[in-house]
């Protein structure tokens, strides 16, 4: 019983960290309101 809980907790931690990594480093923002302005200014 305790082993199952440990496996659940550890996998939850792994999934959470992987998700964090994905959202912070990989995912592209779907909407980017500042981008258009930024592009014009960088010209």
């Amino acid at each position: 019983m305790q082993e199952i809980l440990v496996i659940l907790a550890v996998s939850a931690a792994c999934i959470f960290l992987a998700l964090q990594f994905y959202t912070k480093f990989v995912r592209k923002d779907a909407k980017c309101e500042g981008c258009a302005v930024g592009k014009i200014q960088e010209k």
Partner: protein
Amino acid sequence: MKIALLGNPNTGKSSVFNLVTGLRQQVGNFPGVTVEKKTGTLQIEGNTYTLIDFPGTYSLYPRSKDEQVVYSVLSDNEAEDYPDLVIVVVDQSNLERNLFLFSQIYDLGLPTLMVLNMTDLAMRNGIAVDVDQLNTFFPSAQIVSTNARVGMGKERLMMAIADMANATLEKRNPIPLCPVDDVSCQEQEAEARYTFIKQIITASLSKVEKEKKASVSKLDRLFVHPVLGYIIFAAILFIVFQFIFAFAAVPMDFIDSGFAEFGNWLSDSLPTGVFSDLICQGIIPGIGGVLVFVPQIALLFFFISILEETGYLSRVVFIMDRLMRPLGLNGKSVVPLMSSVACAIPGVMATRTIADWKERMITILVAPLMSCSARIPVYTLLIALVIPKTTILGIFNVQGLVLFGLYSLGLVSALLVAALIKLIIKSRDKGFLMLELPSFKSPRWGNIGITVWEKVKVFILDAGKVILAISILLWALATYGPSESMRNNIAKAKNESKELNLTKEETNQRIASAKMESSYIGHLGHFIEPVIRPLGYDWKIGISLITSFAAREVFVGSLSTIYAVNETDDVNKRLIDKMRAERRADGTKVYTLAAGASLMVFYVFAMQCMATLAIVKRETNSWKWPLIQIGFMGALAYFGAMITFYTLS
């Protein structure tokens, strides 16, 4: 219903925001940009409204990154945050300049509410506004007077909001904005607006002429004095850090030992088993490791927001600008660098106020060298471990001085690195300052309390979750290992103990160490040991170094986990006592002065924060800059620590 809150900087916009929303606030980001978005809710007569706080600007046309969000949201009625109603906070003591932004927003055609703020200051300056007269120039707008700093006008403001929300206003035709890159169109607009505003001022403003309106306040004479100005700034910083160290120690000790006792009690009460072990040895120390430096974060933000609220911080920008420029920085870099003392993430985001690309880039690159609060637990633990608790000259706490020294080391290296980068990066155009120095005000404790509360909350929720997940993972890695090597090592330890005729307790100690050493994390620590041996570290420190690449504060949590797992006796000793007792195989202490100092230096320099890297990547929009950052900070850390170790041992 969405309500946007806009206004010039230093008009008391955040006081107005706090006045109507109280503690019902949330901090997030505007979609796609990392500009901080504060939203709050207010309820009037059963209706709920969402108030969105926009960055303070002088015009709708942006001049720096954080101001772009105002233009992009208000110029696009499809935008997610496009408001149904706009509240513009107007500083009554400076009506002419404030009306510029107000008239721009009014012309967008949205229902607009003007909050005439700072009535007290205006009155003191002999300025009186004829509100009815003013209203004739903006017939569809409502005008409310408040003095948000002292909480005056809340009822009036709430009633006006409800009024405007319920009224069906006749649709005004918006006057189109100039394109964001058409400066001559914007200049023409500006001239036309000021001609219009002149008429308004003549009609609705009466000013009691004093002998001479402009004078330099006594405080300014002091704060920008050629010698005293810098001495005062240095003294303020020094006092702040001494206070943080002295005041935070008590609650930190309390939290630290509280969690140790709690873990102890829990391990007695829970049924034995691996999940109980996970709770007592992984989760509880993990949470404790996060909460333990809440007092310091709270104190640091408490002091920073006092400096900001009083208006002193902008004087610091003013006196530092000329000194920062040869280093490729801007006077405004002082604020990001100071914020980085709390956390590099808001620091990097605060660089958005720096309009010049090169000055901004350099500030971003060196900001993480400032010692952030995540390093505080590492510093405090190591200082308490290897630095004696004595005083010099009767008043200066040596531990406090070492802490001050570590912060100074971070600052000096940040400045030197900046000067170096300035020579490398090619600039596109000249930077500018153009900063308003707001009048001095006494701090409003309510506003400061809300700021501190918000920062602590974000820290506990954001950093805390990651740290907790990492400590669970760490516990698993420290508990399990390749089964064969685990079995062999335990058998070996048992045999050795039998041959040496050890007591039962000593045997258990040996077995526990053997387990730890043959766990996954033990293998990992041993794997990198050759690399870190020149710095004076053993494999256990190596483990903590690896894990703290996710976030520095994990260092302490990892050590807690490692030493807790390693424990055989029942007494849950405090981490520092365990570390003090830690011996190498040859019987010498692990945490000598040299090794401790070397670790401190390593933590001053190393770029060990995933969250900061992520922000730098987003802010610079490329992988190049965060990679450069890891590279040069890593090299500084490794060689700095090595030199320290050899000098002291």
